């Protein structure tokens, strides 16, 4: 192979290298959401009520404890699971019993879920139970209109209840 052919060969191979790098660095484009789809995200982190009632220690019980541990109220550590339900246009989209975190099951229960939904107007309803009886003691609902690719976030805070952010 003479020098001209060799240099041509090198040019072709360098060109292929550049072409591969240049092309696959941005292409082909990935379609993450189809046209006309939007996204619903449910996420919160919430510490549920404790599974048992708190009680007051008697004076005798307190006396048996070391001085720095003498707290009158004795509460069980374990928290109840958080039960959450989410409805889209009257149909159940999600229901889950979220266990408390931590080895002693005394931490908050957390969730992060994403749902692809059609863009447009939707009625969202959410319910949450954070007590040992499993009674839904928080509720929220809202009608939202979602543009394609728009995200609506359903959050929950004990103080303010459900929030529908979009």
């Amino acid at each position, binding site marked *: 192979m003479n020098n001209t052919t060799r240099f041509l060969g090198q040019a072709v191979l*360098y060109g292929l290298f550049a072409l591969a790098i*240049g092309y696959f660095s941005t*292409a082909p484009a990935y379609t993450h959401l189809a046209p006309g789809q939007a996204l619903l995200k449910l*996420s919160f*982190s919430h510490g549920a009520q404790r599974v048992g009632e708190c009680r007051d220690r008697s004076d005798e019980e307190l006396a048996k404890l070391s001085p720095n541990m003498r707290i009158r109220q004795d509460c069980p550590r374990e928290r109840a699971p958080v039960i959450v339900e989410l409805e889209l246009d009257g149909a159940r989209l999600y229901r889950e019993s979220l266990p408390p975190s931590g080895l002693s099951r005394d931490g908050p229960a*957390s*969730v*992060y879920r994403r749902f692809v939904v059609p863009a447009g107007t939707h009625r969202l309803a959410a319910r949450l139970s954070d007590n040992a009886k499993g009674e839904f003691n928080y509720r929220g609902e809202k009608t939202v209109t979602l543009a*394609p690719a728009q995200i609506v*976030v359903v959050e929950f805070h004990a103080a303010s209840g459900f929030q529908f952010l979009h």
Partner: protein
Amino acid sequence: MDSNIRTQALSAVRAVEAVFDRAFGARDNPLRHLGALGFYFFWVMAVSGIYLYAFYDTGVTDAYSSVEWLTHDQWYLGGVMRSLHRYAADAFVLVMVLHLAKETVNARYRGFRWFSWLTGVPLLWLAYASGIGGYWLVWDEVAQFSATATTEWLDWLPLFGEPLARNFLTPAAVNDRFFSLLSFLHIGIPLLLLLAMWVHIQRVSLADVAPPRRLGWGTLAALAAVSVAKPVVSAAAADLATEPAQVALDWFYLFVHPLMYQSSPAITWGLAFGATLLLAAAPLLRQPKPAPVARVSPPDCNGCGRCVADCPFSAVRLVPHSLKGTYKLQAQVDAALCASCGICAGACPSSTPFRSAGELVSGIDMPQLPIDALRRQFNAGLTQLSGPARTVVIGCDCAADVSRVAGTGVLEISLPCIGNLPPTFIEYALRRGRQGDGADGVLITGCREGDCAYRFGNEWTEQRLAGEREPHLRLHVPRHRARIAWANSGEEADLARSLAAFRAGLVQKTAAAL
């Protein structure tokens, strides 16, 4: 790997390498310098990254706007640097994957190579952690998509009390400090990567960490050309209230996100962990029977250090001589590092067949084929040679099979590696030829340039024959009677053609001399 599949894959690799050989020459063939190119691209990333860092602002809006300024307002330098940074990172992944594939096909994951192989596995994770983090710094739609997808992926692991993806839930969730953290990570993880790359090459001497100059300039020119022709630009600024619907992904790094969304985080983790475990366990699979390692004979070792200089795996070192009153130093072999290639024996000045000792003992030798046995093999074979162009073909067990070119007037000898051949054996064969019972020519073969199974066997041999490396072939040995014709395993036909041409040349020379 099943040997049939491996043989076919090896043939394919060699066919592609042959194409590149024709264009670049074996010395500058990028496929023979994949590891070195990895280091090279790392340094391109480091230099361009330092420049970009000088202008990068850490902030939710500043991050995007500072990169935009660099890309558009300072396109002639900042924009080119950004493109070089990105494309060098992509090229790094490309050569890393090719390097891994080539070493797998060559079964270079077992035996004495276990350390280099095993320490290469974390490089994959570190490279991806470095690269993916770099995308987030731009904080455009691609960054948003990648950050969300990565945290959703990580959340599948039962490690985090609260889902990490909540950090990208709403526009208010991201703050300026996040970008300071990202900057530190994007410097820290690549530094870890560099450290791991350094560890990766610790058990090889004279590691190939810089490509040949022409190849370096060529690849840089290619990266610069694509940087100018297709400058890297950002997507729209990240907006956590909207999901990026179409993403212009960098498939070298971000392919894992579509893979997760098309399957599930569990499957993606399974593939990632499974591949990692498989790679890490590869050195344990079907271990070959270890060959005997090099052996030092203290009475014959004068501590010259040539074996130390030539060992490709740093398995030989000099220690105080065990025999007092002789020499200060002697060679010592680390059995755990020795590849049993015999390059050390080829480098030993005492490995000469001209010595008159009854039993030839070299300062450092291979128990499976000692120099004395090699001399006996030569002696027995040379007396059998007849015909007009008596030729010794000396090859190696890893390259073209020399027994396939056997014929009248040809003596074939195969060594563990061609670097195992002391050059004095060439002179020995030719001198005996002049005396009547030897060879008219010696043809040396072995793995092609840059493809030696033991890294330097062919290179050291070339240098020894050219008088550039000790022990060298003496100047008075006629060079037209000693020729090199590299041929890999499977290229026996090429070797046969080279042998025929060489022998024809010998006949012509002899006729001309008469």
